[in-house]
């Protein structure tokens, strides 16, 4: 098979390249990726060596998770958590997995029922395993109920209608929505309000953020959800990656400033040309 692949490669079209190895149009992007990787790796090594790493600032939404689960425990009502409509490998869903493990450990510890609903059938078995493992690590494998982890539907509004039905029947006291959402965000937030649930939401979807801000008690905006795994675990290595990410932001801001100045004095977009390998 490998020989066949290489034969196919030899017969393929020639791409403009750098040194015959790297594709020219994305070569500068590759250098930037390596640079970013270097910064992150440096921060990880710094954390592993026990050197001080900047802390993540307070994120009220993540601090509120304990409060939300505690409230549900006191009221004797379940906690509902959902990753929204994201795909299984999306970055938002990866952030959700970290949060799910944390919330599952809390519910196992407080003996609170956790209802986890999924729109994506690929996420469902992963979520079930994460919750099962969390209950096992919390010493409560008997409390895990596989029936409370469910795949409802692959269709947006069928899923939303099913969640609305679950909310009416089970009346969760806490609703945690973490991931990528579309128009159903407003409906989910409102139905949570109608049953009196405390709501913590986080998404990178800029179109849905206003609905969450209006409808939820706490909202994590954009990149805050990616800091969730580092924030809840307090692992220095993970915090190091978040610091590396912030340095990447500094670099991008610098590029924006330089690009803005150049754009005002030049007719050509030099930075865009360099990034696209046009030289």
């Amino acid at each position, binding site marked *: 098979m490998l020989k066949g692949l290489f034969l196919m490669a030899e017969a393929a079209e020639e791409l403009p390249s750098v040194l015959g190895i790297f594709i020219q149009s994305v070569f500068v992007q590759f250098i930037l990726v390596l640079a970013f990787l270097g910064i992150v790796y440096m921060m990880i090594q710094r954390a592993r060596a026990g050197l001080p790493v900047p802390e993540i600032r307070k994120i009220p939404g993540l601090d509120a998770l304990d409060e939300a689960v505690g409230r549900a425990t006191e009221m004797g009502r379940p906690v509902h958590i959902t990753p929204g409509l994201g795909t299984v490998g999306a970055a938002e869903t990866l952030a959700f997995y970290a949060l799910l493990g944390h919330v599952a450990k809390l519910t196992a510890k407080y003996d609170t029922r956790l209802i986890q609903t999924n729109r994506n059938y690929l996420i469902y078995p992963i979520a079930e395993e994460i919750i099962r493992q969390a209950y096992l690590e919390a010493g409560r494998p008997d409390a895990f109920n596989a029936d409370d982890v469910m795949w409802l539907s692959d269709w947006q509004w069928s899923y*939303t209608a099913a969640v609305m039905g679950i909310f009416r029947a089970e009346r969760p006291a806490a609703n945690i929505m973490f991931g990528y959402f579309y128009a159903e965000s407003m409906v989910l937030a409102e139905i949570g309000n109608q049953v009196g649930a405390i709501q913590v939401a986080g998404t990178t979807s800029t179109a849905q953020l206003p609905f969450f801000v209006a409808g939820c008690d706490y909202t994590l905006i954009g*990149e805050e959800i990616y800091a969730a795994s580092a924030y809840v675990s307090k692992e220095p290595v993970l915090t190091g990656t978040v610091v590396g990410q912030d340095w*990447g932001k500094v670099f991008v801001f610098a590029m924006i400033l330089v690009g803005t100045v150049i754009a005002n004095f030049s007719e050509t977009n030099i930075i865009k040309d360099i990034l696209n390998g046009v030289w």
Partner: protein
Amino acid sequence: MRKELPMFIGVLAGLAVIFDRYFVLGRNLGLTATLDDWSVVMDGMMFAVGFINLTRLHYLNVKRRRAGFIYSIVLLVTMYGYLALALYETVDGPNATFIFDNVFRTMGSTMYGMIAFFIASAAYRAFRVRTREATLMLVAAVLVMIGKAPVGDALVAGWDPLAEWILNVINTGGMKGILLGAYLGAFATALRVLLGLERAHLGGAAK
């Protein structure tokens, strides 16, 4: 091995995508396209797992006569009935298409229509002059809503351009700032998975 093997497969797949994206040989080998084909096969298998779980969940609801078990009966009859119909005359068959277009799509549109009412109730709660931020949001919302309606420009000339300016400059600027951070965050998250630091999706705490 239960966590190491999936992590190893994930790292390998990530490296294959990077190789395809940045290297001439990788692009010519078409590794990403091959991975896409494999993922389609896995999608089908996982759909079956979800289908079986859904059946089991609602069957147990019916068997144990839980509250609302009637709806579980409706779901099971609808699900398997439509499956049988689609197998008999294919998904593009006349009856299957009729049910999809006239029942399913209609119900989806109904759900979509409910958003307007939910927005109204959320706005009633959120747009109150309690804090500086809430007041600012209220003022901006009123300016944009009236500006985008025909009555805005009829009342005060230049209202629509003001609303456009709020949307195109302030709103778009804020959105792009959020997106910038989100993309970098997604990159860092993917990097953590590639380096084997992020293990939450494997059922364990992050390393």
